[in-house]
């Protein structure tokens, strides 16, 4: 058997990796390259012709004030959401690994929002904000209270709240795995050396859980930055476009206003911003990781 010939190698490679290669190319590689090409054309989505326009799409993307407003809004939303998601997730993970009764039940329970898609979750919360909270508000004030979703600042607040609720359970599971990976003997050794439980937490457990923090923060940043489903169902960008996130803006630009070239250019800019933030974050947090 000839194991070193090119023919053998390519046959082996194509038999095993061929299907994956084809699917990977047809969903990611080809569209990605074709997308780059589209940013240099002014395609309207219907005609067969795609007139070449050079960098005009990038110029109009950079001039598109609504796009940059949406990006700015997404950054603010992401900062709040990421911090709160991780804070809540960490505290929940701490409580469900402390040995209280029923901790498996709580772990499973907090994860429930992750089982359900963003569209459905958004509508569930829309009902809660528009009906249930308004009813409570009316009872307290005795008058007509407006829904939080109908105020400009409120819609953004609602979006953050729902995202925290949606992702906290998932990140909690990662932090739980982190807590479990720190062996009890290390904590006990620290306590014998005179640490209080909170010192042991701060100086032993948390530094050893750096990997969990890196993973969770990375996952929450990359998810928040391209939030779309919940945005669509919960606020739809309203009121007065005050809650249009970057992903929704890109979608509307391309598919609603049929400005595919600019939409694609903006998507690419979004990707670059997202990649820079993600890679910087992983790089910075990897540097500080320690091993037991």
């Amino acid at each position, binding site marked *: 058997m000839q194991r070193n010939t090119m023919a053998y*190698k390519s046959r082996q490679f194509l*038999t*095993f*990796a061929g*299907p*994956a*290669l084809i*699917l*990977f190319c047809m*969903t*990611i*590689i*080809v*569209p*990605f390259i*074709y*997308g780059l090409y*589209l940013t240099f054309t002014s395609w309207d*989505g219907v005609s067969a012709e795609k007139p070449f326009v050079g960098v005009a799409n990038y110029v109009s993307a950079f001039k598109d004030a609504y796009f940059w407003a949406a990006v700015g809004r997404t950054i603010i939303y992401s900062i709040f959401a990421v911090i709160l998601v991780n804070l809540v997730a960490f505290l929940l993970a701490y*409580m469900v690994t*402390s040995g*209280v*009764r*029923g901790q498996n039940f*709580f772990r*499973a*329970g907090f*994860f429930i*929002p*992750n089982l*359900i*898609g963003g*569209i*459905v979750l958004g509508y*569930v919360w829309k*009902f*809660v904000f528009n*009906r*249930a909270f308004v009813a409570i508000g009316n009872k307290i004030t005795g008058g007509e209270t407006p829904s939080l979703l109908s105020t400009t600042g409120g819609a953004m607040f609602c979006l953050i709240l729902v995202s925290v609720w949606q992702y906290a359970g998932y990140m909690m*599971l990662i932090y739980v*795995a982190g807590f479990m990976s720190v062996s009890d003997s290390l904590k006990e050794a620290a306590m014998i050396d005179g640490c209080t439980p909170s010192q042991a937490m701060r100086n032993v457990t948390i530094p050893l859980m750096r990997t*969990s923090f890196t*993973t969770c923060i990375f996952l929450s940043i*990359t998810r928040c*930055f*391209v939030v*779309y*489903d919940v945005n*669509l*169902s919960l606020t739809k960008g309203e009121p007065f476009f005050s809650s249009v996130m970057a*992903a929704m803006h890109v*979608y509307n630009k391309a*598919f609603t206003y049929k400005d595919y070239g600019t939409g694609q250019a903006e*998507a690419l800019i*979004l*990707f670059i911003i*997202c*990649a820079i933030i*993600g*890679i910087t974050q992983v790089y910075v947090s990897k540097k500080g990781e320690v091993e037991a």
Partner: protein
Amino acid sequence: MTKNEQAAKARKRKHAIMITLLIIVFILFILPFILVLINVFKDQADITANPLALIGEHGFTTKNFPEAMRKMDFLNVFKNSLIITTCATILTILVSAMASFVIVRNGKWKACAILFALMIASMVIPFQVLMVPLVSVYGGVFGILNHRWLLILLHTGFSVSMATFMFHGAIHSNIPLELEEAALIDGCSRWQTFWKIVFPLLKPTIATVAIIDAMAFWNDYLLPSLVLTDKELYTIPIATQAFYGTYSTDIGLVMAALLLAMLPILILYLFLQKYIVAGVTSGAVKG
């Protein structure tokens, strides 16, 4: 009181506080679902009058369900979601496991190294970058949107990188090379070795990939909404979105539709929660 007793008492108090806190947070967590659940059995007027009451003035009703099911075409939509999720999940597992096998065992081949590097790099590309070209290529150039199998292939294509990465890790660290060599000596071809020896040993990873991807496919909205515009082919998330667009004023129907959309996966979770929690955790930690 001895020191030990004091410590035990302090721990007990701490646990009591934590349980109380956990119960409160838990109730807040599932409150939205409870609100849907109590309102689904009321009629429209009762929900508008008081969404917080357990039972409406006009009493308990189940009439929202049959109507929502009919208007949402729930059985058909459920069937579509089931077909797409099942096929895409199985396909992802098969093609990714195969690819990762050749990549791990022949990592030095240029084709393997390039493919794997591209797959890892592609994981940071957000869907927004690919959606316009996807519609343009498959809708504009080929004109093959509105086919279930196209969505299945695209779902698989999007998840193949992550799945290959996970299988790569599993084969690399858990499958001894000696086992494959022994099979080879006994006369197995590489193909047989993979299916008879390696693939069965990948069961834990297969379960993890299946859980993560099946949940992602089941709940995905954006990609299916771009590929499937024919009402007959709608999946649950698209149907929910369309339903809300049409019947948002009839809040009783909306409640029933939302509950129907959530029910299948919640029921599944009731039985498989141990595996789902374990699968998601190991997937996230490795990924």
